[in-house]
């Protein structure tokens, strides 16, 4: 793979990922009969945050300031591993899926410590929920990935998500459906979306991700928001690779198609958020374990 083309998906992700928030917002506005925000609002928000100064808690240590930075650096590394159809990914090696999963774990570790660093009980509460749920999503994700590995005989993200569907064999559709269902739940949970978390709630006691970043402001919050957009983009790309592995061979066409597909997933998220309420916190683990079981079923089908 030539370097210039493989850099294309990374560039597209950098430019287009905040737009996903606009798509979700417009979808929800459509269901709610509202007009919605201007399409470029997320870009304005991030730009405005990057122009601000900073206020740090007296309790906070350097750990607090490293949180957003480590998070963004980790998500950028994960982006380099993410394939988008034809161009593949910028970096690819066998077993990169494991690094991919653990880069998100690193991002979470940094965010949780930054939250605990403020000494706020709200943020402690959010962090506690975050680590509880993520332990379950990680299992669902890695089991789903191993089902895909078994199906495609590849253990790199580019290998398993770029193969044409035709080479799957008879169990392909079943496995892909099961894994895609699991990945969609993982996608919603990891990006703090309804039904697991609500990014637009205004009560600290009910938040998960939002309450963890309560004390971040200005440049730091801008970095967190941007990292969140990239994470949503990356997880959508992986989900899309599972249900719709396309490879035109034409890098431009592939990238455009995948970008459009990711936009479609944003619409889907918007529909989910418009049509259902949040689950009670006590029920969320059941949903996540359910995702894990679907991944496991996928793996069993591969074996059978």
């Amino acid at each position, binding site marked *: 793979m030539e370097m210039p083309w493989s850099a294309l998906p990374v560039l597209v992700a950098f430019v287009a990922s905040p737009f996903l928030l606009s798509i979700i917002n417009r979808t929800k506005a459509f269901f709610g009969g509202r007009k919605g925000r201007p399409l470029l609002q997320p870009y304005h928000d991030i730009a405005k945050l990057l122009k*601000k100064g900073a206020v740090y808690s007296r309790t906070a240590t350097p750990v607090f300031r490293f949180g957003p930075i480590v998070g963004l650096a980790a998500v950028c590394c994960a982006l380099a591993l993410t394939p988008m159809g034809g161009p593949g990914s910028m970096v690819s090696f*066998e*077993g990169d899926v494991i*690094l991919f999963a653990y880069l998100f774990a690193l991002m979470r570790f940094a965010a949780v*410590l930054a939250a605990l*660093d403020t000494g706020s009980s709200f943020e402690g509460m959010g962090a506690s929920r975050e*680590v509880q749920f993520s*332990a379950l*999503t990680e299992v669902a994700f890695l089991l789903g990935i191993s089902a895909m590995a078994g199906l495609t005989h590849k253990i790199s993200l580019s290998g398993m998500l770029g193969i044409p569907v035709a080479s799957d064999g008879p169990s392909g559709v079943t496995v892909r459906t099961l894994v895609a269902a699991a990945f969609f739940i993982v996608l919603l949970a990891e990006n703090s979306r309804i039904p697991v978390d609500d990014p637009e709630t205004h009560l600290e006691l009910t938040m998960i991700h939002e309450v963890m970043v309560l004390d971040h402001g200005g440049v730091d919050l801008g970095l967190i928001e941007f990292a969140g957009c990239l994470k949503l983009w990356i997880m959508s790309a992986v989900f899309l690779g599972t249900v719709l592995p396309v490879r035109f061979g034409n890098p431009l066409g592939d990238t455009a198609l995948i970008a459009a597909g990711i936009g479609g997933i944003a619409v889907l998220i918007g529909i989910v958020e418009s049509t259902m309420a949040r689950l009670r916190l006590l029920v969320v683990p059941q949903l996540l374990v359910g995702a894990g079981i679907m991944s496991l079923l996928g793996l069993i089908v591969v074996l059978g």
Partner: protein
Amino acid sequence: MVLSSMFLFLASLFILAAGAALSLIPVSGKGGGHGSILAAAGSGLAAFSAILSLFGGGWDRSWPWSIPMGSIHIGMDGLSAFFVVPIAAISSLAAVYGRGYLKEEGDGRRASGSWFFYNILILSMLLVVCARSGLLFLVAWELMSLSSFFLVMFHREKEEVVRAGLTYLVATHLGTALLLVMFLLLDRGGMEFSRFGLEGGSAAVVFVLAVAGFGTKAGLIPMHVWLPEAHPAAPSHVSAVMSGVMIKTGIYGILRVLTFLGPPLPWWGWLLLLTGAVSGILGVLFALAQHDLKRLLAYHSVENIGIITLGLGSGILGLSFGSTAIAVLGLGGGLLHVVNHAVFKSLLFMGAGSVAHAAGTLKIDRMGGLLRRMPMTGGTFLAGSAAISGLPPLNGFVSEFLIFCAGFTAVVSRGPLLPAGAVAIASLALIGGLASACFTKAFGIIFLGEPRTQRVSGSRESSKAMVVPMVILAGLCMVLGLAAPWLFPFLAPALSALLPEGFAVELPGWAAESLQGVAGLGGVLIFLVLVLVLFRAFLLKGRGVRRSDTWGCGYLAPNPRMQYTASSYAWPTVNMFRMFLRPVRVVEDPEGFLPASAALKSHTPDVFLEGFYVPLFLWVRRAASLLRWMHQGQTHYYVLYIALTALVFLAWRLW
């Protein structure tokens, strides 16, 4: 090179023996005299000799012995050398740390005695992994158990320390009893390792005995109950050595016995894989539920021994199904995790000791805000926490990555090993997530936020002797993570001792590339962090950067006791797994319109201890009380018993 390796090794044994002897001379000063210096020097030399042997080849030497059964036979092959390196290196650093640590514990006399046992402990650990005859092995094994028992009993005036020490003593001897039977089964004359060899049914018995006997020392569930008792009771440098390296002699034992037994059967691999998965998952769950920092770390040792065993189990399954890739990845990952765990766990125990001295407590819920008061201890503890959670680019990730790769290779093969791969992947994923939860709790509540008690807010950084070893170990966590592609030559000699002839001792080509990718991306990650730090500094230049209070929803009088506690942080996860953990909560609800008091107490006892061992030993005590009439406490009765026993033996011999 081989000769010099042997010479240096013997010299190091001599130095350690001299250190032990010197420690017996009472000294007046604190810290305990020169025993610690000789311990550090002797073990450092042993580490060097093992590295020489890893590259220069092994050696083997025996001396005649007047005791029946065998000779003093020691040797250093790839497997021994691989275990000597971490054992000796960690013992050396812990000796430096312990010198500073014991100075603050006062009482030079007692410290001096403890250095006697410390030297003996290192000496016996080195002998255990280098012994080549059964009797020498058992003597060294027993010496190791006894010396560590006396080290645990440092604060013998405390009741809980005595109880912990006795638990350990009983557990380790039950393990040794199994090993004794195992060696008798293996013996083909002279108790020489070179003549050991078994096939068929008795090989299976020996394997099970090895897993149970050595597993007791290693801390595999359900034989782990002594770990969470002994580690909190021992002084911290001793916990660092015991948890970091001594329990690894159990892993060494299992591996060494495997080399006697010929081609492994699939169910051996399955046994190790499942024991490892159960130990890993339950270990981290129990860790999460603990309120005492050293108890938490002790359960993490159970977890990491689980990960190691998981790797070895997949490797052995690979061996028995003839898959070189799975065998090399699984065994290699397990072995590498032995070293990695030695590095970060000893670092974390040293950090715990440093915190205990500064804050005067090990109760996580009493602490807080220690990072600003002890930046070096805090910073190194953070490195250790990230490493033990398996996060890139640190060393814990590399070994877990190899075991994951073994699992994925099994899944991709779609053969009979697919379920094994799935078990490995799922349990490693769960362990990873829960370990992150546990160490964000430990680091976050202890070092971040505000101090929860007056005593803790006056904490100061520890002495240089304690800080320097921690900094070195934290640096090693980083170096071993980024040097992943170049570590394999260190593993190869140990692997070639484990793999039968005809197996190629090399990483599959793709895995070597993957390790380069992991290390490369780790470097990129660090680079990006630096770039972003500069980027933010550039953006914030000339803008207002203020300090203010943490957002408290507008509440005007927040106090440190309102912070989230470690118990509440872990509760949702603990509660989710209450089926296995059986946490106990005693709630005293506020009552009436003007409640005067309310209370909540929670703790999580070890279900295996409470549910199995305590009833078992109560039963044993009842059974033993039937023989109480024999014990009158009068000397002439006992002389009679001895005489009768001797008579019975005489009659038996004459028969």
